[in-house]
């Protein structure tokens, strides 16, 4: 029988990754995700698996590159400044079509910023982040339980599509403790054999992992294959949830920890007779454009709420495609919109125009 235990997000996620069959972890210390590195240092050797504290995030992502190329399930974790350093490596992973999982426990930026929770790396995560035409799947958990379940999903999606999957959390999710059931996991996917992995050309043709293609037209071919994979992901892997959108005059869009604050604000607004609802993208890429667009078929006002100064806002506008007004409320740099603030924003919109 499975039982709930109290765990912080960083440790719960680390344990889930181990249970999801991660063979190798590489990381460099940075707050607010140090508990992941410390947990892996303790647990991975117990499991006879690989833990290396790398000399930098540039090294960490390249260690991931190597481990992935030889067929291992592998991941790294960091926080915003470290993830910036990894962008080159993530681009190479995309070019070489190697699966990997990267966890970003976002903190305040830009620059060294601070160590407070933030959602300011949305653009970087959902637009690829490094150079070249590529995408990473981006999963945005809102609770420690979801963080755990998404680790299993992340490794499966990475292996299934041979892409990098980013788990986009924040300092709250990493640091907070919640009851969690570590045995709850999504149904495993049917995964292809990694026949491309560099395991030694023993009785088979040589395998090559590469991202340099100089002959005429070849790189275009490679890009088209990548794009075909991305279209497949967009068709099959969008996740989002919503509430009250059937009759809502006001639809709030938010993700991650912010979506829980919004949920409470909407509940309170409903108590006061205001018809509010919410949509929560769970995958930030692929983004639920169609789902949001469908909600915009009725005249209503959209309000995007983020712990940033307006990043997902762009995607919501693309989804709504001009059919309804899209407004924004957000705070960042360590500031977090409270339930009361969000409720205030909803009430402001609900004032009848004279």
């Amino acid at each position, binding site marked *: 029988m499975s039982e709930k235990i109290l765990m912080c997000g960083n440790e719960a996620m680390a344990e889930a990754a181990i249970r999801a069959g991660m063979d190798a972890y590489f990381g460099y210390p940075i707050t607010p995700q140090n508990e992941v590195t410390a947990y892996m*240092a303790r647990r991975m050797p117990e499991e006879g698996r690989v833990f290396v504290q790398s000399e930098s995030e540039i090294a960490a992502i390249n260690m991931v590159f190597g481990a992935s190329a030889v067929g291992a399930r592998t991941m790294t974790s960091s926080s915003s400044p470290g993830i910036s350093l990894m962008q080159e490596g993530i681009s190479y992973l995309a070019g070489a079509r190697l699966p990997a999982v990267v966890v970003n426990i976002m903190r305040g930026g830009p620059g060294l910023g601070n160590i407070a929770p933030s959602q300011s790396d949305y653009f970087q995560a959902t637009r690829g982040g490094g150079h070249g035409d590529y995408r990473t799947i981006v999963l945005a958990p809102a609770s420690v339980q979801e963080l755990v379940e998404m680790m299993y999903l992340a490794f499966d999606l990475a292996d299934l599509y041979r892409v990098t999957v980013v788990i986009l959390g924040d300092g709250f999710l990493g640091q907070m403790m919640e009851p969690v059931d570590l045995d709850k996991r999504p149904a495993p996917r049917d995964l292809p054999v990694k026949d491309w992995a560099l395991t030694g050309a023993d009785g088979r043709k040589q395998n090559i992992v590469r991202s340099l293609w100089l002959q005429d037209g070849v790189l275009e071919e490679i890009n088209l294959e990548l794009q075909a994979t991305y279209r497949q992901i967009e068709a099959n892997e969008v996740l989002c949830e919503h509430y009250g959108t059937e009759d809502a005059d006001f639809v709030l869009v938010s993700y991650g920890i912010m979506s829980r604050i919004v949920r409470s604000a909407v509940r309170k607004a409903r108590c006061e007779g205001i018809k509010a609802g919410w949509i929560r993208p769970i995958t930030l890429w692929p983004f639920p454009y169609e789902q949001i667009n469908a909600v915009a078929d009725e005249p209503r006002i959209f309000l995007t709420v983020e712990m940033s100064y307006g990043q997902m806002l762009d995607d919501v506008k693309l989804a709504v495609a001009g059919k309804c007004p899209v407004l924004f409320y957000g705070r960042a740099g360590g500031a977090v919109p409270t339930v009361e603030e969000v409720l205030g924003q909803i009430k402001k919109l609900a004032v009848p125009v004279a």
Partner: protein
Amino acid sequence: MQTIFERTPTLKDCPTHYCPGCGHGIAHRLISEVIDELDITSRTIGIAPVGCAVLAYNYLDVDMIEVAHGRAPAVATGMKRVHPDKIIFSYQGDGDLASIGAGEILHAVHRAEHITVIFINNAVYGMTGGQMAPTTVEKQITQTTPRGRDHNNEGFPLQVSEILAVMPGTIYVERCSVSNPGQVRHTKKSIKHAFELQMKNAPGLSLVEILSPCPTYWRMSPSQAMEWIEEVMVKSFPLCCLKDLSQS
């Protein structure tokens, strides 16, 4: 009444954020005294690392910059090339210099940049909560070496100063400590020598490594930490002048 000790002007009159028994404060004072004695306050630019000393500009009253983790020698290069007449020093921890910034320091030496590097070796990452640094000694327990550093897994302590000393790009490399008053005085002399070489435009990089206590993450009292430097740490990091070309 006779004044026997006075705060040097370059060291600001304020409490620091460092833990009790930390060595950063001593190193700050020595650097400040040297800057004042050499009368170079007005043309010195300091580089604060990412690490516990990230706020060094709150304590050192000279022009200072805060840079990305490990990149101080690259930033220093940019500064010195633009302003050869300025005195440029970087102040870096062992995570910053020996780990994430190993490439930057190596190539600053490779290019024989005329800069001064103060390298604080406290055998751990202080700021992030006491993880292993490249300089963590064998068997030392840290947050990421819960069973103690084992060379079969994490390799051996990295002696960066020895490596840099064999490169033609360094002009002066010395390892000191702040574990007793005599050593503190010697450390100050070394820092002064390093700055003087840069002032003379001596051809190469000058580096002073300072073995510095971190009682918090060594889980010791401040006095035990000083003893640990002298009894354990110096075995991996012997105190000595590794190179001084100014004599020849």
